[in-house]
């Protein structure tokens, strides 16, 4: 490994100072601008949500046969993005990948906010959202229970668990840094606030023995969890009969796609933030390069899945499946989205073979954005294109989004950005304690 993970040889104090001060340094113009835009998006989101709930989901473009569309596309897209954080935190932790250290908190934050976006859609897309709690087995006077053979209660359980575990993981990781802020932040109000969240953490070695076990335990849990979540999300489709859905490849395909898009989103956010906060010394070219390579790897898993999907459709001998893949996808209404998916997910990532591309911030950023576009397109293709061309040609349909669909999607980007911008202001988004530990380790190694 040529490139270092931490540039220069900063002292612990310098690191503390640099990484903690993000919460009290004055807001930049850029941040304020972004905040204003994100707030507007959030407003749009809640406006559209209110319209949806008060008049019915007819305000979406959904129809029969395309009964799921933007609502579930956005849901799956966000859940997918939400996979990167836990993957980086948990799996790379277990694999002792040192390069995870600088970026894990950042990715976890992104995960949480992405899962929040994702979790709103299943509720919002219900015909009668006020009865959403019927998916939970509670002692009701109706004496009727949820139906656990359906993949939807699985979904609810998976998303709830994933969110809770991610939150706990994130919070447990933050405790030492909260303690740091309690002791270091200027102004009593800040220190009290962070002090409450630090819960009185003293960094004693006795606490740390439990802490390290807990952190490892959570990582060990989160690893199968992160794989289970998108596998379960994929069962929303794979358990169905619909041609284009009914495939055993879906769980690994979805998990790979999720990590693919998650890493892309990490890059999309990390590259500007690194620039904005001047973090090139802790988030080095090595981190960026590792992320880029992960994207390339997962891109190939996704490409492999595409090939298997098409192969299975042909090999099944089913006219319905073959039609779905070989005729409907490339030519049916909305086929343009299919080609966007193919270009963005299969071709664009191949640029990452080039070291020059991997080292160019701008190129990487554009690629990461395109990958996210491609992954959104993939979900569109899976959901909308499949539903458009099902078994009975008489009931083939098409789909065009309503303004509320578009509003909810752009709105959710705004809401996500808003949460993320607030996160950047309130939390040390580079894990201070862990970077210091790594810094110490690296210096010892060198020295």
């Amino acid at each position, binding site marked *: 490994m040529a490139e270092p993970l931490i540039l220069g040889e900063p002292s612990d104090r310098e690191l503390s100072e640099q990484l903690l001060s993000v919460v009290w340094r004055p807001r930049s113009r850029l941040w304020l601008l972004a905040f204003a835009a994100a707030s507007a998006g959030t407003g749009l989101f809640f406006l559209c949500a209110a319209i949806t*709930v*008060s*008049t*019915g*989901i*007819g305000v*979406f*473009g*959904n*129809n*029969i*046969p395309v*009964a*799921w569309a933007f609502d579930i596309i956005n849901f799956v897209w966000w859940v997918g993005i939400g996979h990167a954080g836990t993957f980086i935190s948990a799996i790379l932790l277990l694999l002792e990948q040192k390069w995870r250290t600088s970026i894990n908190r950042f990715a976890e934050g992104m995960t949480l906010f992405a899962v929040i976006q994702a979790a709103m859609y*299943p509720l919002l*897309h*219900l*015909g*009668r*959202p*006020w*009865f*959403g*709690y*019927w*998916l939970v087995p509670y002692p*009701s*006077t*109706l004496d*009727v*229970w*949820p*139906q656990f*053979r*359906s*993949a*939807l*209660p699985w979904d*609810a359980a998976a998303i709830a668990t994933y969110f809770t575990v991610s939150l706990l993981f994130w919070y447990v990781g933050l405790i030492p840094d909260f303690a740091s802020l309690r002791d270091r932040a200027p102004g009593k109000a800040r220190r009290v606030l962070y002090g409450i969240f630090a819960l009185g953490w003293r960094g004693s070695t006795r606490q740390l023995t439990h802490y390290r076990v807990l952190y490892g335990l959570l990582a060990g849990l989160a690893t199968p969890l992160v794989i289970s979540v998108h596998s379960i999300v994929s069962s*929303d489709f794979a*358990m*169905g*009969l*619909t041609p284009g859905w009914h495939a055993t490849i879906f769980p690994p395909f979805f998990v790979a796609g999720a990590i693919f898009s998650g890493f892309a989103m990490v890059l999309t956010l990390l590259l500007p933030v690194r620039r904005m906060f001047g973090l090139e010394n802790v988030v080095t070219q090595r981190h960026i390069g590792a992320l880029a390579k992960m994207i390339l790897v997962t891109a190939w898993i996704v490409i492999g899945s595409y090939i298997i999907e098409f192969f299975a459709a042909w090999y099944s001998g089913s*006219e*319905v499946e073959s*039609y779905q893949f070989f005729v409907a996808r490339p030519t049916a209404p909305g086929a343009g989205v299919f080609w966007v998916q193919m270009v963005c997910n299969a071709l664009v990532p191949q640029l990452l073979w080039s070291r020059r591309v991997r080292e160019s911030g701008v190129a990487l950023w554009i690629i990461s954005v395109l990958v996210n576009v491609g992954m959104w397109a993939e979900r569109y293709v899976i959901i909308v294109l499949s*539903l458009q061309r*099902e*078994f*009975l*040609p*008489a*009931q*083939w*349909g098409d789909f065009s989004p309503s303004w509320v669909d578009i509003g909810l999607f752009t709105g959710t980007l705004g809401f996500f950005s808003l949460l993320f911008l607030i996160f950047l202001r309130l939390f040390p988004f580079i894990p201070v304690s862990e970077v210091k530990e790594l810094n110490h380790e690296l210096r010892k190694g060198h020295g």
Partner: protein
Amino acid sequence: MKLLGAGLALAGIPGCNVSRVEGILPYIEEPREVTAGVPRFYATSLELDGFATGVLVQSVAGRPTKVDGNPDHPASLGASGVLEQASVLGLYDPSRARGMREGKEPTSWEAVVKRFGGARADRGAGLRFLLLPQSSPLVGDLVGRIVARHPEARFTFHAPALSDAPWEGAEMAFGRRLSPQRDVAAARAILSLDADFLAGMPFSLRYARQFAERRRTPSPASEMNRLYVVETALSPTGSMADHRFARRPGEVARFAAAVVAELGVLRAAEGAAGAAEEVAGGVAGSLAGGVAGSVPEGVRAVLMRLRAAEGAERGLAQAIARDLAAGPGEGLVIAGDRQRPEVHALAHLANALLGSRKAAWTTESPLIQARAAQQSLSDLVGDLRAGRVETLVVIEANPSYAGPPELGLSEAIRAARESIYLGHHENETAADCRWFVPMAHSLESWGDARAWDGTLSTVQPLLQPLFGGRTAGELLAVFAGEMYPEARRLLEDAARRRYQGEGFGRWWAEVLRRGTVAGSALPRVEAELDEVGLVEALTRLAVRFETVRAARAAPTASGDSADATVETVTDEVVEVAFTPCARVHDGRFANNAWLQELPDPVTKLTWDNAALISPAMARRLGVENEQVVELSLGGRSVRAPVLVSPGHADGAVTVHLGYGRRGAEVIAEGVGFDAYPLRQGEVAAAEGMVIRRVEGERHALAITQEHWSTHGRPIALSATLEAYRKEPAFTASQKGRLPTLLPEPRRAGEQWAMTIDTSICTGCSSCVVACQAENNVHVVGKEQVRKSREMHWLRIDTYYSGAVEAPEVVHQPMLCQHCEKAPCEYVCPTNATVHSPDGLNEMVYNRCVGTRFCSNNCPYKVRRFNFFDYPERGPLNDELVRLQRNPEVTVRERGVMEKCTYCVQRIRKTGIQARVEGRDIQPGEVVTACQQACPTGAIQFGSLSHTGEKVVTWREEPRSYAVLHELGTRPRTMYLARIHNPNPEIG
């Protein structure tokens, strides 16, 4: 309000009743015949353009909720068409006129009587009546009384959709205006000359049932009838044809002439060769001409002339003629209303040549004639324009909208010094009349009418007129001098006068109960062919053909043939066919939301009409669906969206009448384009229309089916009779047990199932409306239909195969298949759709949260979703419409899924009844709404445990199959493959 409901709901209340306390209103005196909560049925009749169809109407707590056919009535046989089914909604039409007026001022019935009931100094010379065609003996009486009181009064009967051609044709053939009567069941081979006799004619319900009787093939060994159809646009009848020939309207006569000419040749040969043969002798005896074994000489000569003039399709004509004549007296030729009288005359001639006495005969027309007091519409307009009309009375007819455009009726009506309109709506004609009286709906009226065969049918009300409406009889009685006319008394008095014998009261009660007077059909008239008239008519036809042929032969070099042009053109001279719409008829039902939303049986178009053109013409003109074209004829032009229609004759355009209404009807407003301005007089077809592409203009159409091919998937199977006989088990791979890992589900009791024979499904769609009426299916409106959000639980999928110019058609009623292993059920997260022990796929609306996963996982796509709270949106499901709702079926709120329940409310009601009586449900006791309505009886329903029932025996036929069987859903609804019976002589 909704949010408040949501708040309460969150507290755990599963319902939505915000206020818990409801009122209960008991009767003051209990009516003897009513048991609270038990619906009653009354027999009455509905009249369309003068012809009655008997119906049974269900009444719940005094509100009519459902109309079905009256099994005792010859025009219904228990079945009902879309118009009958939808009539109950017409009763609750939110746009029905609600008050009388004079000018713009409200007025009263007393004022009407005072103004119009008095004596007239001019012997009625200024008095004119304009009515729809009538068959009602009561109206006939009243017309007589008026003429007696005002001898100079004149009557005009006019309906834009009822052609006079059948009677004119009869006049040519027999010298008398006789009505053709048919028994389709008696025919083995049928030639339809542009006649949609299975769905679009008076008495169609009966013809369809008769047709189905000879059509069904219970086993491969069965015989079946053969249907030849020559027509312009594909019709339900055309879709049933074994051989269908798409011809421009003007070509049908040539086709008919060719076939009849060959029949003549055939008969002549037979007569010459085998006069001694008994069969031939029988046939010859049936010929009215009297020349044994042959055709009247004059007729034969002109037939030969026709044959010579029309040589192009001789081989085809010969084959058809041979087939028609193959069975003794088993051939039948039916001419359609759109065709000129000569074609009807040809049909009469053909039937005479075929000796089909059992299949075709004639009777007097059941329509009433005012004899000397009758006046044609153009004469009436002449009188109006000349200022000779003092008082114009218009009853129900809507000439201002649908009258011949060249007569300018709207303007003419305004020229009358005084005018009064009796109608259901404040429509175009009402706007031209000074006085307006709301008309009582059929379900609010006392009256009578005759069926096509003359059977007397009674009309009795189920409720008091909602808006104080009056019947035609009451208004006419005013002019007859009655001060206090009352429909019931008028009817009973008239009936009593005609009744001979004792016990009128008992007899009358029985008539009302049955809805018909038994044995009152008009007697057969043994009319003789009128050689002179026939020769004259056919000669006219021959001259025309010869002229056309000569004209065509001369300038061939110019290459004006449309087929020769390769590059696209912007306009083209074509023929046009005007057709009453299967849904709104001549426009009078345009405000009926069920009918507007009903997909057209053939094109699946809703909430619109369009210019139907052939795919080839669309290519030439460079147009596609929704592209607007301009249609110009006789100096008038209209703009219409194009709908490319497979199987449509090239070089012709079909337009449906009844749209583009301009009255005060809110639902009809702005729907479709008005095609009447293109029409000259009463013509149903014309030549020389110019169709021109209008660049850049489009009109959105709401079509419920966009793809018409099965893509070779095992969905709608069909075979020829020959192939079926050769390989009876051709559907074997589409049924039977599939391997499964799961244990067999335990189910007990009746096992409900449905079997549908696609061989006899004409696609007429009355089942769709019946389902809508029975199950409170919401209407969603055009915009929602465009988003494929229509709510019909039962739809008819239509698949074409073969060439797009002459497709083979299979109609497939598609409804919840009640799969034994239903894929919708295991994806529902809340147990809102589960299976009952008696094999129903249950849908529990109140448990549904609306994830729509069930719909995604339904391979048959029969689940419909309430995207909005449709009852709260607009007039389509408005206040008044709520009175129609079936109280036995939950009205679905927004956000819940719904689908066909196999009419579970009927099953449960019957089950409770049976169990109260301590017995089992009897075979045939549960009838679904679609089954009840179906004219051909293509839908059979019942329990698999009732082994003798059709629903079970049909499934055991070799040609039964399950749609998408390979998915392992084990549908309880099975289909019988469509069997065609093509003539081996015709390629």
